[in-house]
């Protein structure tokens, strides 16, 4: 039985749909956990993707291909979601909590190849593809070699190594006269490393969002000023603005950059009960846009005291109280997730931009790392292992502390290269006077 792997199969950031592909023996378990059922073989099935009995992460089409009649020749599960990078990331993260690991670049194809699903010519092409993906990864790695991210991971790798030197020598050289670390010191070191990994995860996740950007939908009742807001944010007259309710029929797109954060805006048709078939179609599109957005700007008129977004939205929602010139209230940030604006003058939009940056977990350029999804996964696993190590230390389970540290070290090694047990022993002999 081989390992089950998972990855987003569509390029990040773009595209109407995003595909998450899972391959390997755990597919049925993943389907059960995420969908609540195993779809019938090869039949496209609509489903919610959710955490067991809980939050819906995304929804879309699920397809199950039992081995061997699949792309890789193994059991394959394909989930076609709405493609928002953040939604996809959540689906993938959840799947990785099952007995599944992130696929290496080209690994699906590699498995297809190993299971004789490809001919030689295809295989050649795959090899080149992986070579270029890997060359790209290597270039990216060298780029970041001098970079802050890599320096930090290396530092962390070194601290884990240092702690392991003590912990492993306390095991293998228990009888030697070594100044072994006390539990307190081990605990402090573990806590410090755990904090560092957490920060690295946050900063590289932010960095990833900085690369991929944010999908933002503007929605609300008709005539509240959605299109005006789009135009004002873009700084150009993209959408038609009239005083007639129901002006916008189709979805409209525009892109802007907020201090380097790419934001894709979608203006939508105002949502109301309507008989007009064109308007109804427009509203369907609006709903679809809302589904795949990372964030919704829900626009209301400032005068409307009780205005609130529909509750069923599961994406992050910012409330924009527009036309504040008419109420005479001061534009700006209202706390929580509300803003007051005037789309005619642009008042309050600076605060709204800041709000979007916060949604993205924005950090200033030097603060965010150009994290790659693989790196983030490795860091998350290292983080989990360090937490376990701390727990086992409290339970005074020496060899389990050591085991978790080894796992954490291996995870960091996936980024900066593995440290073998022989390297470790070498360090131990260099550090301590050991031997009879």
């Amino acid at each position, binding site marked *: 039985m081989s390992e089950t792997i998972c990855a987003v199969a569509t390029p990040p950031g773009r595209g109407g749909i995003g595909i998450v592909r899972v391959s390997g023996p755990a597919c049925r378990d993943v389907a059960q956990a995420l969908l609540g059922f195993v779809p019938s073989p090869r039949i496209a099935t609509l489903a919610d993707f959710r955490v067991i009995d809980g939050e819906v992460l995304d929804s879309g089409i699920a397809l199950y291909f039992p081995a061997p009649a699949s792309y890789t020749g193994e059991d394959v599960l394909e989930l076609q979601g709405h493609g928002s990078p953040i939604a996809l990331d959540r689906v993938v993260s959840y799947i990785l909590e099952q007995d599944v690991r992130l696929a290496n670049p080209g690994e699906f194809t590699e498995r297809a190849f190993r299971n004789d699903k490809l001919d030689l010519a295809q295989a050649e092409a795959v090899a080149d593809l992986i070579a270029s993906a890997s060359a790209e990864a290597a270039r990216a790695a060298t780029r970041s070699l001098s970079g802050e991210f890599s320096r930090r991971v290396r530092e962390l790798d070194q601290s884990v190594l240092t702690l392991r030197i003590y912990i492993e020598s306390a095991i293998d050289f228990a009888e*030697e006269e070594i100044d072994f670390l006390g539990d307190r010191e081990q605990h402090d070191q573990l806590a410090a490393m755990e904090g560092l990994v957490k920060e690295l995860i946050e900063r590289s996740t932010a960095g990833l969002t900085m690369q991929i950007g944010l999908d933002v939908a503007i929605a609300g009742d008709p005539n509240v000023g959605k299109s005006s807001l789009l135009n004002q944010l873009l700084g150009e007259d993209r959408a038609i603005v009239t005083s007639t309710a129901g002006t916008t029929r189709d979805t409209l797109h525009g892109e802007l950059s907020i201090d380097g954060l790419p934001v894709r805006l979608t203006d939508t048709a105002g949502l109301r009960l309507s008989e007009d078939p064109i308007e109804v179609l427009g509203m369907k599109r609006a709903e679809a846009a809302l589904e795949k957005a990372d964030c919704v700007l829900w626009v209301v008129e400032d005068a409307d005291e009780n205005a609130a977004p529909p509750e069923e939205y599961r994406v992050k929602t910012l409330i924009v109280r527009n036309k504040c010139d008419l109420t005479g209230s001061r534009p700006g940030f209202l706390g929580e997730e509300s803003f007051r604006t005037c789309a005619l003058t642009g008042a309050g939009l600076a605060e709204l931009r800041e709000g979007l940056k916060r949604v993205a977990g924005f950090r200033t350029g030097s603060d965010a790392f150009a994290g790659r999804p693989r790196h983030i996964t490795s860091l998350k696993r290292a983080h989990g292992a360090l937490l376990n190590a701390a727990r086992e230390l409290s339970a005074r389970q020496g060899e389990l502390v050591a085991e978790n540290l080894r796992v954490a070290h291996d995870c960091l090694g996936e980024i900066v290269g593995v440290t073998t*047990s022989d390297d470790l022993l070498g360090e131990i002999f260099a550090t301590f006077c050991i031997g*009879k």
Partner: protein
Amino acid sequence: MKYPTAFDVIVIGGGHAGVEAALASARVGASTLLLTQAIETIGQMSCNPAIGGIGKSHLVREIDALGGAMAIAADQAGIHFRTLNNSKGPAVRATRAQADRVLYRNAIRQVVERQANLTVYQDMMIDLTLKSDRIVSVTTRLGTEIEGAAVVLTTGTFLGGRIFVGKQQHSGGRAGDPASLELSEKLRTLPLAAGRLKTGTPPRIDGSTVDFSKLEAQPGDEPRPVMSFLGSRDMHPQQVSCHITHTNAETHEIIRRALDQSPMFTGEIEGVGPRYCPSIEDKVVRFAERDQHQIFVEPEGLQTTELYPNGISTSLPFDVQHEAVRTIRGFENAHITRPGYAIEYDFFDPRGLMPSLETKNIENLFFAGQINGTTGYEEAAAQGLVAGLNAARKVAGQTAWVPQRHEAYIGVLIDDLTTMGANEPYRMFTSRAEYRLRLRQDNADLRLTPVGRELGLVPEDRFNVFTARRDRLDVCNKVLARTTVHLNSDLANKLSNETGEGISKDVSLLDFAKRPGVRAEHLTASGVFSDKDEAFLVQALIDVKYDGYLRRQDQAIERSREQMGVRLPGDMDFAGIDGLSNELREKLENIRPSTLGRAASIPGMTPAALSLLSVHAKRHSGIRKTA
């Protein structure tokens, strides 16, 4: 002159490797000859009188589980037993026995003499005959040619052995035994990559000249552990204490002043010594800030006053040894019975071996023990067992058997040696085993005795003891799985009281046992099990509590098994692979791993680089069928 009979397997050398090799070969039914320099030294411990220790006792238990002799001999000769790492967890827990040298040698010799299919003959091998690239016979110093279908060479530190004491040096295999010079020269004419390693030993001291009142006594542990699965405390002879003392600033000063007379510092010894077994002069130089070093004073036996001062291995001149020893607390009037010395000897790069321990270049010639670059009795014995078994299997036309890294420390040992080679004498440590949590002393028999039985290594009486133990363990596991602890039942109340763990709903006893506070004695006290099940429960609970970790390791094992299945062609052009870092390219070019799994164990390797290698490997192999 021809020896009157021909053998399936001839084992050269009666050290720890040779003994287990000869016994294993004979146990599986091959007609076996043990040819050794001196029958008196069969089972001789060349250096410290101890068997086991951390990582090493794991090997001993595995040898035992496969029917080997070492563990029982240690129980019959052990005069001081300790359990090491008791508090750190069951996987790294280890057993160490100080062994009476004479009792140990006798115990081993008795097993050898009683083994069916095994003949012992005393002489020295000096030559061998090849037919094309296959070994067919060996020739002794007396000119006797002995035919053997396979030969296992286990000549230890004897090949080209040179002994150093200060500026004095002479040839020797170890103190008191002659070196093997002709054989060393003969082997150097063959396509085998020879090198030199060194090791050393401390001076021995007459215990009647030591003031024990100044030393700290270290008695053996209670409860006293046993080494073998078949062992018992009644087998143990009288028990004695070890002692502890220390070097001091004065000792170090004497050593420092004499460094120019140490052959290791003057460059006369080229061989590399083990870093974890440094000489006292090494320690004084490399860790100059330390003002003392610990010495374990170990008895050499019950019938002698001689002592082994563990921690001051040296090759300084005798007068310096004498002066230095007398600065040590309790040794003020000590008399040295035998000076310490260093020994340099030939070894062969173990990457020239297949995992079966057959040499790649000469068919049916197997190597085991110190000549493969290892150090230690246990490491030697483990290899001996594997080489002897596989030599017999080869002759019988059967495929080789070698345990994998996740099955045994023996597997780790052989994989490390044949993959990484030996830059210094190789010793086992638990940190070398990535699957350490499953490779425990307590389960060595569960891991290996069934396969040992299939291979013919495990005789019936041992197997019966094993199955009885395994069956009782199974029963305990079944009861754990099948018993439900009902809310508010008598059982629930008893268990809560015993363990202090609350029970808020019906729970299986197995799940309850996973909780950290639950120990074996709680389960017997609650009445579900009888007292005599406690030992079994202790073991069952290890697996219960480690379940999550073990399952995660299962996945890693699976991944590595897959990677091991991907062969990297011998002529693979690593330099031409786009996307690899220069550093990795260089390492790959040097190491030339034979499988993807071996590539995975190269320092600095990343998952991305591995998938690159795997695809190139398949592309390289060219002919593929299409789907």
